[in-house]
């Protein structure tokens, strides 16, 4: 059971990290950039929020399947496949909320920063500093979307005992077997984890405000 819990955290945590690395800059660029197809890209990101995770799972499965284009990588039914699928699920959440947050701050904040001698990067960070709470919410949303998701990890992971079984797929398995008590217990643990992780994220954001922004 511990192994399953740790694996859930590992898979969803890694996925969140990837989603953050892609989603935070992407959301910022969509909010502040002026490039052709920006509107289209933004609409796609929002559409990504409505994409059912199991469909993402199916797409990644078809990609990584041995008879698929990336089959040679031998990633099917392994944690990296699950991390990839979950990263794709979480990224729209992170990007969309980041985009809305960054848009909500006017350009005079960056102008003020530049007037104080900030480089464009420093000015951008000072801009982001103003919405750091929302950025944390973006990460929390991304995490929430993947820690509780079951369709994608089931498809690309296969729920293999000792290798790719996570809390959600274990819950499905035990429910199917009729072990409702165990399934509910796992669900409780899942909730507790989601709660704790979000509390930690929130606390971290409060403390790191000055150390991270600006450089």
């Amino acid at each position, binding site marked *: 059971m511990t192994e399953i819990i740790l694996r859930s955290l*590992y898979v969803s*945590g*890694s996925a969140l*990290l*990837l989603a*953050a*690395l892609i989603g935070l800059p992407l959301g910022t660029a969509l909010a502040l950039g002026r490039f052709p197809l920006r509107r289209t890209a933004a609409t796609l990101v929002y559409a990504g929020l409505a994409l059912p995770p199991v469909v993402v799972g199916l797409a990644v499965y078809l990609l990584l*399947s*041995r*008879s*698929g284009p990336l089959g040679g990588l*031998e*990633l*099917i*039914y*392994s*944690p*990296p496949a699950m*991390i990839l699928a979950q990263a794709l699920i979480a990224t729209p959440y992170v990007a969309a909320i980041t985009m809305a947050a960054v848009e909500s701050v006017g350009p005079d904040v960056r102008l003020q920063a530049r007037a104080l001698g900030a480089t464009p*990067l420093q000015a951008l*960070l000072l801009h982001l500093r103003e919405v750091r709470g929302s950025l944390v919410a973006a990460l929390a949303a991304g995490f929430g979307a993947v820690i509780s998701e079951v369709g994608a990890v089931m498809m690309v992971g*296969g*729920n*293999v*005992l000792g*290798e790719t079984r996570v809390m959600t797929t274990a819950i499905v*398995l035990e*429910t*199917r*077997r*009729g072990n409702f008590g165990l399934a509910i217990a796992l669900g409780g643990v899942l909730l507790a984890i989601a709660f704790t992780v979000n509390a930690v994220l929130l606390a971290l954001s409060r403390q790191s405000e000055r*150390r*991270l922004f600006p*450089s």
Partner: protein
Amino acid sequence: MAETRPRVATVLAVSSVVALSLVLASCGPRSDALHLGSTTSTYDSGLLDALVPAFTEAYPQYSVKVIAVGSGEALELGRRKDVDVLLVHAPAAELQFVRDGHGLDRHPVMYNDFVVVGPEDDPAGLREAVDVGAALRRIAAAEAEFLSRGDDSGTHKRERFLWSRAGIEPVGDWYREAGEGMAAALLVADATGAYMLADRATYSSLSDRLRLVPLLEGDPLLLNVYSVIRVSGARHPEAAGAFAAWLGSDAGRNRIATFGQAESARPLFQPVTQSDPPAETLAKLEQALSGQGLGPDR
């Protein structure tokens, strides 16, 4: 005096490295594991948790990943070669699979049977039925509550075959579809006192929690045969071959027969031998199933 360094660049670099190494860390030696595709009901019985370690003990150079999904999906995984060997129980579909060239060969390795379970008071009077067809006709006539798996699993395919063989199109408020796994569906049927077609292994493992009792068993059409199929063009053909051979070997057969001995007197899974079940019975069943057109729909 530059006391505060470019923190952002550092954070970005560090987290990228962390992210990559996390992902790569889990990329262990995965390419040599044999992918075994099986069905959820097989897996849920716990049989594979007993068989697989025995196999890897006999063949330490192999490791096995068990992917347990619905039988339709298992066969599709076989077609995509995402599994190297299959252990399933959908005879008509299996035969088609091999005929289409996706499987190298198919060998029945074990069997048990389906049973029709129902409430103790048996409102439809199944105890008087002579065979499964008669039983189903009685249920339809009495419009007694019947719960179907409804998920196109091996069990559900058999159930549909049996209805059509009995000449009945089951519709009405009395016929419900659960869309759940075998065990969960049994619990639902138990709660509402419905009739149901179940595989003996799952029923046995749950029987002390259930009030449902077996009311019709033994009909040859209720034979539930599990076969091992080597996938053609598999990634690990030698491992697949070793596994298939081991299942049919004395060691394998013994493991199958002794599974679940502690909980039930009768073996949950009976290894297939030359004479058991009789080849004729098997052949007739396969013909009947194929003839009824329960072919490769998944």
